Structure formats: C-alpha cells, structure tokens
C-alpha cells in the first residue's frame, strides 16, 4: 500500500475503528514501515480528540425545556382523554341514543375548557418562575383558533356547544373531529 492510498482510503476509518479485520491488518503493515503516515495517524487522532473535548455543548435554555415538558404534558392528557373516550364508546355501544347524547353534552364544554386551559398554560407557563414569553408556533395556533371561532358559520343547528356535539354524534363523525 502506498501513502496516498493509506491517507485517502484508510486513515480516517482507521482512527475511527471502522476498518474491517483485513483492512486493519493492511493499514498496520503500512504504518509499521512508514514514519510519515504514523505521524499523520497521530494528527488525525488528535483532531478527533480536540473536537470531542472542545466542541461546544450548549445547555437547553430553561424556557425551551419548560415549554417542551408542558407540551409533553399536553400530549399525555390528550391521549388519556382519548383513551377514556374509547372506553366510553365501548360502554355506550350497548345503549346508543340517550347515553351518546348525554356524553356529547358533557364532553363539548369540557373540550372547550381544555382548549382554554391549554391556551392559558401556553401563554402563562406552568413551570417555575420563568416569565411568560410568546412561542411563535403556539401564537400562530392560538390566532388560528381565535380566527376560526370568530368567523365560523355552522351549517347545523348551533344554539349551544351541545347542539354541535349532538350533530357530530348523529353523523357519526370520529371523535377526534370534535372531541379535542
């Protein structure tokens, strides 16, 4: 093996421990007889060490960490609610009609309350004394929601949230459409 082949094809993988057994044997044979490539191997390893030891590791800002944990909490509670909803679906299937209607009336206000609580949590923060700060994607989502509420024109009877829920139930729309 000549020096160019070693440096171009073997050196980095050699330092990284990525050579196959056969390649490693060839590389070591070459290094045994070549001072220049041995020096080059030491340099390559030093660069690798320098990077590992000196490349900056940044701490996640507490506010970012906090908003991630809050978002995980929101996923957990949404999933728990969905699982509970599935349980109720099964029990409701035995007695469709009155029970489903009642469920719709119960869940619609809860869903609306959940959105309000979620928006409050996002706007004001729940973890620690960090002052509330706007988070662009959530602002956008909240604005979109506000726009939706302001401009939404229902094409069904909609005197109360329960009316809307009942309509969704009657049309057998899947829960995730209306059950936040």
């Amino acid at each position: 093996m000549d020096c160019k082949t070693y440096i171009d094809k073997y050196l980095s993988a050699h330092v990284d421990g990525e050579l196959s057994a056969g390649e490693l044997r060839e590389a070591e044979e070459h290094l045994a007889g070549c001072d220049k490539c041995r020096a080059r191997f030491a340099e390559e390893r030093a660069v690798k060490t320098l990077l590992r030891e000196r490349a900056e590791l940044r701490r996640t800002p507490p506010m970012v960490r906090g908003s991630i944990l809050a978002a995980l909490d929101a996923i957990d509670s949404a999933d728990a609610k969905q699982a509970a909803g599935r349980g109720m679906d099964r029990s409701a299937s035995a007695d469709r009609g009155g029970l489903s209607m009642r469920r719709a009336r119960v869940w619609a206000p809860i869903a609306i309350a959940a959105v309000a609580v979620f928006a409050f949590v996002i706007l004001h923060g729940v973890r620690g004394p960090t002052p509330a700060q706007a988070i662009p994607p959530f602002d956008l989502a909240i604005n979109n929601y506000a726009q939706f509420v302001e401009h939404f024109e229902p094409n069904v009877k909609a005197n109360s949230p329960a009316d809307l829920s009942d309509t969704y139930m009657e049309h057998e729309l899947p829960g995730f459409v209306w059950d936040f």
Partner: protein
Amino acid sequence: MADKSGTGADRRKRFEDEALPHLDALYTMAIRLARNPDDANDLLQETVLRAYRFFHQFESGTNCRAWMLTILFNNFRNGYRKSSREQPASSPEEFERKVENESLRTDPVGSNPEAMLSVQGMEGEVETALASLPADFRDAILLVDVEELSYQEVSGVLNVPIGTIKSRVSRGRALLRDTLANFAKERGIIRS
C-alpha cells in the same frame, strides 16, 4: 390493547429516562443546523414531540441519541433546508478542488497536534473551524467525533450510503486539521 410503549405514565417515564438526557446534545446540533436560536428552538421542540409520539417505534437497547438525531435531521431537511437562512454548501466540484489543493501540499503546516491540544482556549477556534466546513462534511464529522456514532449509525441519521459517510469524514477531517493547524500557527502555538 398491547401497546409496546405501555401506559401513558410508563411511556413518559421511559422517555424521560432514555430520551430527555440527550436534550442538550440535540439542542447543540439544532443550533448548528438552524444557525439562529428561534429556529433551533422550533426544530428541537418539533423533534422531541415527534420522538415522543413515535416512541413506541424506538427499539430499547439501540442508540437513543442516534434515533433522535435521525428525527432531528429529518425535520431539518423537511422544514428548514429550503429556507434562505441555510447557507448552501459549496458545490461538490468546488469542494473537491479545494481538498485536492490542500492535500497536494506535502506537509501542510508541519502541525503539532499535541501542542495544539495542550493549549487552553481552542474552543473558539474549533467552533470557527467547524463553521467553515461545508454543511455535509461538518454534519458527518460532528456525528462521528462529537456524538460518537458509528459510520453505520451516521449513515442512518443522514440517510446517505456508508461509503459517502466514510468519504465525508475523511475529507472533512483533512480540511479541519489544516484549518486548526493554521489557527495554531497564527497564535504561535506551532511553527510553520
């Protein structure tokens, strides 16, 4: 229902134990990729939430950091790459020429890496040298040297063949070595 991730509380606990310890590493990578804190925060948040949603797909016992970095890079490619904020890498041809010129020098700078390592305060230079690399080379180097992933894992994270990773590491490190040695020379740590 037989859910691999168990109940919600189990999933949360496993995620906090296995995935969240890598948050700072992910944030550091997000900062390097997005190049500004707001985009990095969005990228990080999106990555962690997606990882949580799909945590049942993570195979316990495999490298969780590599798995999360894969999601981070996927998100970055899908959401941020087209953005004008991302500096385009040099063209492969241009970079090839540059590397060729570097490697044609018989003894690039007569460097002394041990001397370089022994000096405090090379952090700034290391970051500057990293930032000067074309993005593809920098990413491969960071994943191998800083995140300590295998070539196979890096190939998965970046979604490119392992041979390409090998060549990016080799070329990227050669360029980095020369840049760092030049810094050291400028600061009088080593002689030319």
